[in-house]
């Protein structure tokens, strides 16, 4: 499988006044297309920073970041926005839906910044995605009228609307109870099986167990990198 994400000697420093905080200390990682990766590690290990860098939300201090064949680390702010808009999908811990918009409008939001023409066809696509995540009867509800699990499903539908190469999850089940967490993880696994590459941050082992590959970070370095395929295969066979 070709690597969809490749980072070389990734260094990320934060400058707090005169102090320099070294968050990521030269990471080298490659993620294959179609993989399902869990990033783990204690707080301060740099897993969220890594996810932000992968999500083109944060700039790296040095090193290279290739998304497909493209070197993202040298792009301008506008180009990064374009990359996010075209190649990436986000799922956040706190859902991050816009409260004033309905379910369909929230799903549609990324298309607004793609320069595609918003017409009946795109609307139908958004409705189909909402139906796919099981919210067909709540298309015109606002996020505050939905439960946490439902909101996260809207967020998943939203992350799929631009048909991204890579879905990034920042503790997607962090605010959910265990039953809803399983529902969400099943949905992510379905997506992965359908070919989507997923990278998610989590600090719960039983959530990480859904992934095919678990990367543990500690103090800005890779601590361990374990393939989890046996277990996934076992589950697949269940």
């Amino acid at each position, binding site marked *: 499988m070709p690597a969809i994400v490749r980072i070389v000697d990734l260094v990320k420093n934060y400058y707090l006044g005169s102090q320099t905080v070294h968050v990521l200390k030269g990471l080298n990682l490659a993620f294959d297309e179609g993989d399902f990766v869990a990033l783990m590690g204690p707080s301060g290990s740099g897993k969220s920073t890594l996810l932000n860098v992968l999500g083109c939300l944060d700039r790296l201090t040095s090193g290279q970041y290739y998304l497909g064949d493209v070197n993202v680390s040298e792009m301008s702010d*506008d180009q990064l*926005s374009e990359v*996010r808009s075209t190649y990436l999908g986000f799922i956040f811990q706190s859902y991050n*839906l816009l409260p*004033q918009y309905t379910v369909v409008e929230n799903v549609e939001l*990324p298309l607004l*910044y793609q*320069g595609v023409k918003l017409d009946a066809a795109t609307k139908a696509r958004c409705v189909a995605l909402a139906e796919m995540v099981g919210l067909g009867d709540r298309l015109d509800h606002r996020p505050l009228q939905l439960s946490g699990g439902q909101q996260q499903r809207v967020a998943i539908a*939203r992350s799929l609307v631009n048909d991204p190469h890579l879905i990034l999850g920042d503790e997607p089940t962090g605010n959910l109870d265990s039953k809803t967490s399983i529902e969400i993880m099943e949905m992510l696994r379905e997506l992965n099986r359908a070919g989507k590459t997923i990278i998610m941050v989590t600090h719960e082992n039983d959530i990480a167990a859904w992934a095919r590959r678990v990367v543990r970070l500690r103090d800005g370095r890779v601590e361990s990198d374990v393939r989890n395929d046996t277990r996934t295969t076992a589950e697949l066979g269940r």
Partner: protein
Amino acid sequence: MSVDLGISPRLFLLLFAAGFAALVAAGALVANRTGHLPLAGNWAKFRRSVSLAVKSLWLHKLRSFLSVLGIIIGTGSVIALMSFGEGSMQDALDDIKRQGATNIIVRSVKPPDDSSTASVGWVTAYGLTRDDLEQFTTFGDAVERWVPMRVFPTQVRYLDRQVPNARVIATVPDYQLVNKLELARGRFLVDTDDDEYENYCVLGSEIAEKLFPYEDPVGMTVGMRTHFFVVVGVAKERMPTGGTGGSQAAEDYNKDVYVPIRTSRRRFGDVISVRTSGSRINEKVDFSQVTLTVRAEVDTPEGRARVQAVGNEIKAMLDKRHPKKDYAVTVPLDKLEEAERAQTRFTVLMGIVACISLFVGGIGIMNIMLATVTERTREIGIRRALGAKRKDITMQFVVEAVVQTTVGGLVGAAIGIFAVYAVPALWDVVRVWSWIGSEVRLPAKLHVGSIFVSLGVSILVGVAFGLYPAWRAAKLDPIEALRHV
């Protein structure tokens, strides 16, 4: 303060509006070319961002309303004030035009120092003479016509009815043209009346009403002093001139009696005795007034210059011939131009007031927008994460501000236009039911230019004051913004 833009105020406003529109259009084109403003080619996106702005604003109805209140009041008051200003100015201009803007009015004035006047016995002689009138003919073609008048008060009688304070105006047939006199019945004086020394007269409407409440006045005979005149016509009722300051007094034309000037001279003589309270004044005045009409178009600068030139020549000529200054020259055009200058001045001042009030309104918008940006930091973060570029965020907030000021401007314009029609009507009601201000009229004429200008300025204010908060929103770091609670 003297502002002379050399163009009429309305033209000025129209030019301003056109220039503004052109500027906006050019800006939009450039922004569209550079991709900063998604317009043509992505009309749907633009429409979408407007509808998003409306939605966001609708979420906080009271707040949005309060923040545009300044714009509403600003726009409304600009339109209302400009319209009332235009109305009263139009009133004054109409007044002047009624006097004839191409006319030059030369009047005899009793010199202030009585002892130095040429008195022959008890007779006071002053004013314009027949010699002066001869001189006026030297202007030839430049002057279309000149209308001499001899005016004196008298009593007009018919049977036992009488009007004690009527005014005889001895004049020539051209008077009708110069003063735009319209007749209700019969005819005005004609040349043959003058040539034949006919005892014919034309009555003003009020005199006709008083002397002949039931009869047809035409053909009747009225008595004035020791002579009798046959009525040949009755003038239509005429609006009195408002006495527009200077040497032009208010005139009530409805108590005039018009007689041929040569008849008057033969019957009443050059010396007219006027009885005032307790005494009697004998005056020898050839002409009380001569009205010259200059052959010129009042709406062209050349025409105006010619009127001024003739006026100056007349002044120079009379200055030489009348060392006693027993005359006065009035050029209504002077007042017309003065009024127009006043209007321009008024327009400029109003424009400044408009700018100030809309500026204040803009500060209100910016204040709320800044608070909104802080409040919606997280939303900005979400949008950035989902692929919004900085300029998309800028656009969103600018569009929101412009939607606010545009809606505010439209509402203000509606209120202003409503006020222009409602306030005068309301004022008329108040005028009828109360004692105060019963004489004061409140004329209003909708000032169309001010609608476009104030709307345009509202939109401009939206862009100008929305830009800074929008820029603040756009430069937020997406990660920080996402972390914002």
